[in-house]
């Protein structure tokens, strides 16, 4: 054997390393860099939105372009930033956390990443087309979306690309977790992050084909004379909303569940104490995933459903508060009587728990159909989903990056700058989104480029928060680059209280790890 041995740590160099890569770490890095890039592209659109809303009157963009900013910002942030960031973390960390040498399907892994840049090139190119980009909202409700100009088929095929990429990623994760765990690691011994990603993968596989079906029906309605969603031809525009949200609500949890997994890794590490209620965390995650398939119509209480339908979806929606509550209580109990320290990952994790819960509170309010008739399609909803997605999902991703950066780069990031980034982000995000609750309650509809003067003050405050948040993220890029270039050497186990197999490989993690399965000790399996 020894004569055939070659240096397994050799990483191919140059551009080909990235284009042809089948290495889970390289592909994970690609995903993360791509997600960060898209975070700034989508963020730039958010800046345009907030600039236009800074004061009443139209100052910068015409309403059609404003609508396309609202639409494309959402699509990019969901499909381009948060989802790929989650997949990137899964790629990097799942093999390390379960003791596998790589993902189960490395070539498919390469393809599922490289589809993304093409998908987004299609989507972003629409902004430069005759008639402008898609401007009917990311929800693409017909008949409005059918008024899209040349951009329409590009939008549909971009969605198909992103869907195919995500489905392949999900298959890969499931195949990896079920087949490649180190001998001796049972399912109920996996780190919570792995569990949440397995459940998320099933959500992806079950929901994305539904979206693909819905947008294909839009395509045939526009170009091939079908009338799926056209009442004049015997169709029903509301049917699209049912199909869309059958995908759309699980999608919300596709964004949120990996965040739950991250927080379940970070809080025990910095509390120096095992995760409280591991089994109930797994069951709560699974319950949320199952419930997410039977609550979709709470996004459309105002379409005029029968009373019984409204009652069913209201009860099912309110029920989600129970498993979500269990998770929050478990995190608190993990912190209880721990020996906590507050490095940047922990700060982001604590902010996540509080701010995501605030988003959960407004979610409970929105779930109650009779009051939702007032909240629906106002800034109250905008505030709600940004609390769960920005101060929720994105904060968790930030926490994850700070937590695992030492493992990726081999260096500790600049803790002082990390803390500044945390405080500026947290304050500005709240200045940005908290006033939007008031705007919505006072009666400001969402997706409007201009507004009555009674909404002027809170919009200005919100915009100031928005600009501050946007600028602050440049600091994040600086911190990450600085850390990649050097700094204090990271130990293999970079954090005193860190748990999990990934801390038993060197920092930075070598190109190939666990080429022979690790012999698990009790300590390695702590959660």
């Amino acid at each position, binding site marked *: 054997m020894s004569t055939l041995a070659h240096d397994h740590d050799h990483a191919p160099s140059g551009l080909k390393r990235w284009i042809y890569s089948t290495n889970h770490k390289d592909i994970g890095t690609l995903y993360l860099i791509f997600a960060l890039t898209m975070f700034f592209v989508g963020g730039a659109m958010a800046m345009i939105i907030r600039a236009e809303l800074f004061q009443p*009157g*139209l*100052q910068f*963009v015409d*309403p*059609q372009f404003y*609508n396309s900013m609202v639409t494309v910002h959402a699509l990019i942030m969901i499909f381009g930033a948060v989802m790929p960031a989650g997949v990137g973390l899964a790629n990097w960390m799942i093999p390390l956390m379960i003791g596998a040498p790589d993902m189960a399907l490395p070539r498919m892994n390469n393809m599922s990443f490289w589809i993304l840049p093409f998908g987004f090139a299609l989507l972003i190119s629409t902004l430069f087309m005759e*008639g402008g980009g898609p*401007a*009917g909202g990311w929800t693409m*409700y017909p*008949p*409005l979306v059918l*008024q899209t100009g040349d951009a329409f088929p590009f939008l549909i095929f971009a969605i198909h690309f992103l869907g195919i990429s995500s489905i392949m990623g999900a298959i890969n994760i499931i195949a990896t977790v079920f087949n490649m765990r180190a001998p001796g690691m049972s399912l109920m011994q996996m780190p919570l992050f792995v569990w949440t990603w397995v459940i998320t993968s099933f959500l992806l596989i079950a929901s994305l084909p539904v979206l693909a079906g819905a947008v294909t029906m839009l395509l045939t309605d526009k170009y091939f004379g079908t009338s799926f969603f056209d009442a*004049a031809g015997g169709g029903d*525009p509301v049917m699209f909303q049912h199909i869309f949200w059958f995908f759309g609500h699980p999608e919300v949890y596709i964004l949120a569940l990996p965040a739950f997994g991250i927080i379940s890794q970070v809080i025990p590490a910095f509390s*120096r*104490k*095992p*995760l409280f*209620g*591991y089994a*109930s965390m797994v069951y709560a995650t699974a319950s949320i995933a199952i419930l997410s398939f039977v609550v979709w119509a709470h996004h459309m209480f*105002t379409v*005029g459903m029968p*009373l019984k339908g*409204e*009652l069913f979806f*209201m*009860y099912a929606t*309110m*029920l989600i*508060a*129970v498993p979500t*509550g269990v998770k929050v*209580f478990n995190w*608190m109990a993990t*912190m*209880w*009587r*721990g*020996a*906590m*320290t507050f490095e940047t990952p922990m700060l982001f994790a604590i902010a996540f728990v509080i701010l995501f*819960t*605030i988003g959960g*509170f407004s979610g*409970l*309010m929105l779930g*109650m*159909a*009779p*009051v939702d008739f*007032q909240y629906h*399609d106002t800034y109250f909803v905008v505030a709600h989903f940004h609390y769960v997605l920005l101060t929720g999902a994105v904060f968790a991703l930030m926490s994850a990056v700070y937590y695992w950066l030492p493992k990726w780069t081999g260096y500790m990031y600049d803790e002082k700058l990390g803390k500044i980034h945390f405080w500026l982000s947290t304050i500005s995000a709240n200045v940005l989104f908290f006033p939007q609750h008031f705007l919505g*309650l006072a009666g400001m*509809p969402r*997706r409007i480029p201009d507004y009555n*003067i*009674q909404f002027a003050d809170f919009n200005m405050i919100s915009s100031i928060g928005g600009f501050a948040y946007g600028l602050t993220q440049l600091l994040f890029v600086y911190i990450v680059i600085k850390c990649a270039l050097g700094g204090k050497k990271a130990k293999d186990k970079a954090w005193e209280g860190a748990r999990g197999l990934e801390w038993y490989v060197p920092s930075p993690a070598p190109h190939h790890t666990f080429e022979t399965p690790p012999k698990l000790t009790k300590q390695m399996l702590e959660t």
Partner: protein
Amino acid sequence: MKTFFIKFLSILALFPLTAFAEWGLNMREGVTQISQRVYDLHMVTLWVVTVIGIVVFGIMFWSIFHHRKSKGVKPAKFSHSTTVEVIWTAIPLAIIIALAVPATKLLIDMEDTSGSQITVKATGYQWKWKYDYIDDDLTIFSVLDTKSTEVSQLNSGLNPMENENYLLDVDEPIVLPTNTKIRILTTAQDVIHAWWVPDLGWKRDAIPGFINDNWAVIDKPGTYRGQCAEICGKGHGYMPIVVKAVPMDEYRIWVAEKKQEAEAKKNTADMVLTMEELMTKGEAVYKAQCLACHQANGEGVPGVFPALAGSAVAIEPDQRLGHIHRIIYGKNLMPAFGEQLSDVDIAAVTTYERNAWGNDTGDIVQAKEVSEARNKK
């Protein structure tokens, strides 16, 4: 860092509280019993989640301040307790059931449209509302007022802050009687819209090909404003709703007057106006109906809304009838105005479009020509 944070908090604390009161922080109580009940349920839920938040975050912060490594705490080892897990599953469940009961009752009452005394159908158009008073055979079109339209153009240079009802005023408000159960049907002509007046306590989608029914009993006379709440294209932010609630007898008088006006509008075919009169009237009609898409300068929006300035349809003599027909019947994205505008209005706006922005055809279109055009498609 800490000093910055303290400064920030002190700025917030010093903010004049009276200003907050005027800004509208909370849901409106509205002017119907239903809107009052919606408000009450909203407040109950808000207080419930606020108390839960204070308790839960309070415990968490207590832990954060006391269970720190820097205080020399040795971490505990526990990771499980069936008792507390059962408790914190059961308590939220109980709270949710307690909230679901009043929500269910309210929802059942909101959906009960029986026993209504009058019916009004609101139809959403890109971008205006049409109201059919079914019992009185009366139709009203309601469009954003010209003042807001002018101010809201990109870089108009006009200050919206001078108009309290900026973007919340229409040319023709609808009038509804107080203390009467009004059935409000919503539907749409082109894309999905949503009809929302916060003071009535609900909003409901207006969907092409389908009719939703809702109801309201307005307790107090007054003017109540709302907006379209479902994205419906470029003009989504520019199709407000204004409801004037008046006592029943005043409402009857208003209906009678409006019907007379409508009757008068029907018979404008014989009106003959001078060029100046047509241009003035035409400009007013253009601002109210056409400007949102074709723009003040008649240039339209490239790729979306065609230009009228220099456009064949508004210049060529042989397209004069086509021009009138386009306004009466619409085309593609352009809605039909035949039902909404009188003969003389259409004549005026056609004349205006054929002479404004350097089109200078000198064409004069009179109401009679429009009346005839209606009969020969």
